[in-house]
């Protein structure tokens, strides 16, 4: 869809230098270059600060702060000023869009933190905190979003602000949000994902112009779409008994409008884990759905998420990620403790779902 093909190449245009991924060596803090691959251990003197010690004895402190990811140049320049004045001119960003300042002197840590906080950047997100939410595009930029991303992240991080700055959770908590069912945000301890509840509404006038029909037909996971003539024009038809409203047909065919202000809901998923620590990586599971897409602050979503976090915080043992915790207490008790209703929609019926049925008498009463 959105890959570009440059029609004709005007003579004056510059040929790209196909430089690829740049070497990171020149951007690295000198202490990182010197001790590259030679670190011995780390500890965390306080939330938001990592202290790494090299085999040779060198030490660096990394101070982590939250950002909005979608940053205006003024904000970026402010961060650069802080890096130049209070750190050593080098920064890095984490996979969760937190910024890290690296200093080689313990004395620099406190002033740096003070300046960051003063400038509105919360210091935290390390260790057993609730880190920044994996952020997607939403209404600000994407062509298929059912909701926004930046606003959801902002609204939620406001609520989770304290947990970002503290390290009081049983283990790290990683959140993500995805503005359509495609899930660019990925697997997370807790994820918020759009869940459509009605089949696409087809704008038949447009299909013939903009959609390659076989492509759209092929995209449907349940073969619910078939070519049809509507008002004498080639269009498409949906078998509504089959369609499970995934929205996969929408990107290749924008006239298959899946987004709906009322019927595009939000679902909450928990227990995703990518790390191999303890158990194998696991997918997250849907535990709530039907939440309204209530911009600009999504209070219903925030409530469910905060509640899950609070119950987990109170109940889990040290080192138990959300998935590990539920492994111990079991799903029935998860629903009991969080007060979330277990509806029939949460029982898997997609391919391979049999593997997920309880084929044992392992039951908690």
């Amino acid at each position: 869809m959105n890959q570009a093909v440059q029609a004709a190449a005007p003579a004056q245009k510059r040929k790209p230098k196909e430089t690829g991924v740049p070497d990171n060596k020149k951007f690295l803090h000198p202490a990182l270059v010197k001790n590259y691959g030679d670190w011995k251990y780390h500890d965390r003197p306080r939330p938001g600060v990592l202290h790494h010690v090299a085999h040779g004895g060198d030490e660096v402190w990394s101070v982590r702060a939250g950002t909005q990811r979608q940053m205006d140049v003024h904000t970026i320049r402010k961060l650069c000023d802080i890096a130049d004045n209070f750190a050593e001119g080098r920064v890095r960003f984490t996979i969760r869009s937190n910024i890290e300042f690296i200093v080689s002197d313990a004395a620099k840590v406190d002033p740096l933190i003070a300046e960051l906080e003063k400038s509105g950047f919360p210091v935290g997100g390390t260790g057993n905190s609730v880190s920044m939410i994996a952020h997607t595009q939403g209404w600000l930029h994407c062509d298929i979003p059912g909701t926004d991303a930046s606003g959801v992240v902002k609204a939620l991080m406001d609520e989770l602000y304290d947990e970002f700055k503290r390290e009081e959770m049983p283990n790290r908590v990683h959140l993500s949000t995805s503005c359509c069912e495609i899930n660019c945000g990925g697997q997370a301890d807790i994820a918020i994902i759009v869940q459509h509840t009605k089949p696409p509404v087809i704008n038949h006038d447009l299909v013939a112009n903009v959609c390659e029909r076989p492509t759209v037909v092929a995209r449907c996971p349940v073969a619910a779409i078939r070519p049809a003539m509507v008002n004498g024009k080639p269009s498409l038809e949906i078998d509504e008994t089959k369609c499970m409203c995934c929205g996969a047909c929408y990107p290749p065919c924008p006239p298959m409008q899946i987004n709906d202000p009322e019927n595009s809901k939000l679902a909450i998923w928990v227990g995703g884990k990518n790390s191999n620590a303890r158990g194998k990586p696991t997918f997250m599971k849907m535990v709530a759905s039907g939440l309204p897409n209530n911009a600009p602050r999504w209070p219903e979503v925030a409530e469910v998420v905060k509640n899950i976090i609070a119950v987990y915080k109170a109940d889990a043992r040290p080192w138990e990620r959300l998935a590990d915790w539920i492994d111990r207490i079991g799903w029935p008790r998860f629903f009991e403790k969080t007060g979330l209703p277990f509806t029939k929609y949460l029982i898997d019926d997609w391919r391979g779902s049999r593997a997920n049925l309880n084929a044992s008498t392992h039951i908690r009463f």
Partner: protein
Amino acid sequence: MAKKMHDTPNLDQLEDGPWPSFVTGLKDLAKDKDYVVDLLGQLEESYKTRKGYWKGGTVGVYGYGGGVIPRFTELKNEDGTPKFKDAAEFHTLRIMPPPGMHYDTGTLRQFCDLWEKHGSGLIAFHGQSGDIMFQGATTDNVQKAFDELNEMGFDLGGAGPAVRTSMSCVGAARCEQSCYDEAKTHRAVLNTFLDDIHRPSLPYKFKFKFSGCPNDCMNSVQRADMAVIGTWRDNIRTDEALAKKWFVKHGMDELVNDIVARCPTKTFQVKELSKIKGGEHISTVAVNDTHGIEINNQDCVRCMHCVNVMTGALAPGKDKGATVLVGGKSHLKIGGLMGTVVIPFIKLDTDEGVEQLVDFAQRTIEFFAENALEHERTGEMIERIGLTNFLDAMEIDVDPSMVNSPRMNPYVRTDGWDDEVAKINAKKQAA
């Protein structure tokens, strides 16, 4: 001074609260830019109607076929003109970051300057695939911005059915768990595929991700068609001084409940010193004068847990390398897929090792290009053709590490059994 702001009662509410606000940032930009004034106008409209108003299109830079995400407004007046005309085009340049996403402030300031000039002034550090996303430029300005970025030494990333931008963890640069040089490997692999990045012509997207150890801080197992995750083959290393230091702080209860009980294969044991046995595959370390840790490394699955809890006191071994998994992806069409182990272990500490990985990546992508259906990811392709056929094509021997267990059904035609056994035996004898 830019034109007058539109009313944004919804967005205004996103200026409240302690977390840094993107709305405040946008409003800052809007002070100087009609472009952003209108962007806010359209976004407010989305908030009001709960609908998105962008559509794709065709915009790019000279010489490349991808890397720009074109956005044209669909919010039109009756007469077909854009409702927010100054933000009618809002394209994004995806720029590949340096591995580990390190920067000096000079570079960041240069980014700001050029994007203030040619774009909206909005930059995301980073997209979920790792790109620096320069968000919001008109069609005219895309080339200008790219030219300047490219002169700085940065290059466009992937979009569409292409090899995509990659991410690697901070790893060797600052992490004691790192098992290979993530940055070097990341560059060696990605820069082999520049043509496939810049000129989308694969069946569908293909992503690489690099994590230095099984903690997988890059989430590669479920977000990468090829995940390269560091690991080691020999024994866990120990440091008695740090082990004792840890024990003083945490004590026996935490040692037992937080580590012994959580070791997935029960190979991490605490014993009286006198009962601890050594051996070729055993790591041991005292935690005080009476007790110590014993790990049989043959049963250890390198999950990282004990190493994480007792960082420094325990550490990955010295015979380091990586496990390669193929086929991770997100929800579309058949549900989320995790990668599958296809190379249980590969050494990456020499150029030859890295070249072997590059070679494997090349052969994988060639096979993918030739055999995947349109819009089919590697994971789906392997699902369709079967792991064994993929391994065959890659000339990789099957290995029980690739599966949780052997098959649980008899539905296979095994008339080649004896031949396979003969092949295996021949290889063993040759080795």
